[in-house]
């Protein structure tokens, strides 16, 4: 069968100033990444990645970003991500760093990885808890991390697996 295969890059955006994470916008990330590809890979790279490049998911609270591109050119996108040093949003330049944590063929595999990753991050936060309430809320969050609930919710919107 002939069909378009894509690669999903799960990335994490780290800001120098933690408060500016709230002002993260999809459009800002889209134009920032596209310009970075054009600078790093020229006209050829910009054209290759522009065909099927979108920001699929952006979480402003955790800084998780999911990018999609074609399977043949995902390395161009991947290698251009370290060259991003700031993101423009509402006329302000915020210095940031984008690091990729996972490459998957479907949104579902990225989702599974993200749940495991979030669980690890929560467990890492546990020693730094100040009070019993925080500890209890972290415990509850860790226990509620599971794919089954999400599968029941999102079974209608999931994409086919590659």
């Amino acid at each position, binding site marked *: 069968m002939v069909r378009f295969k894509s690669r999903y890059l799960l990335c994490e955006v780290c800001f120098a100033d933690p408060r500016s994470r709230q002002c993260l916008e999809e459009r800002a990330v889209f134009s920032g990444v596209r310009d970075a590809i054009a600078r790093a*890979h020229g*006209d050829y*790279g910009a054209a290759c990645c522009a065909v099927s490049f979108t920001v699929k998911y952006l979480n402003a609270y955790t800084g998780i970003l999911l990018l999609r591109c074609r399977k043949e050119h995902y390395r161009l996108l991947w290698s251009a991500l370290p060259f991003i040093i700031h993101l423009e949003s509402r006329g302000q330049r915020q210095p940031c760093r984008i690091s990729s944590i996972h490459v998957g063929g479907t949104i579902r595999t990225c989702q599974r990885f993200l749940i495991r990753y979030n669980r690890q991050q929560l467990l890492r936060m546990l020693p730094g808890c100040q009070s019993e309430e925080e500890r209890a809320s972290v415990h509850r969050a860790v226990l509620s991390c599971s794919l089954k609930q999400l599968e029941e919710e999102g079974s209608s919107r999931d994409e086919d697996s590659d």
Partner: protein
Amino acid sequence: MTDYIFYIFLDMAVEYFAGTIPDCIHSMRRHDTKKPETASYERLVFRNASDYHYMKISLIFEGGNIRLNAAHFKQLIISSLRELYGEIGAALPFDVLKFEENTLSAVLRVYSSALVRLWSALTLLGCYQGQPCGIRVVQVTPFLLALSGNSRELKLD
């Protein structure tokens, strides 16, 4: 690869008709059934002719007398690579082995894997300091010795 497979089939066909099929089908040797001792040969196929490719090119301006030196010439090619392939393309390692200022012709050396990128960047070279110009590729070869003679400029007396 297809040549190699063809030769294997040829060997097997010859041995079939001669009446002796070797037990080991994947043998790389051909046994000569006529002579008492077996004469064997081994065929080696190299896919990559050479690590480098050499290009003989000449820079052509529409009009005007423009002087360039080797450094400007290399800078011109790097700027064309940067436009087409970005910063990573501009870092493509290539060498200008020879540059003649009078005829504006040069010999470039580039890794074989990077030949397509360099050639496409040379094709799309547009202008130098506002003057329209172009690059004519005279010869491309994986062996430097081939640049010494060109059958187009050969004079037979």
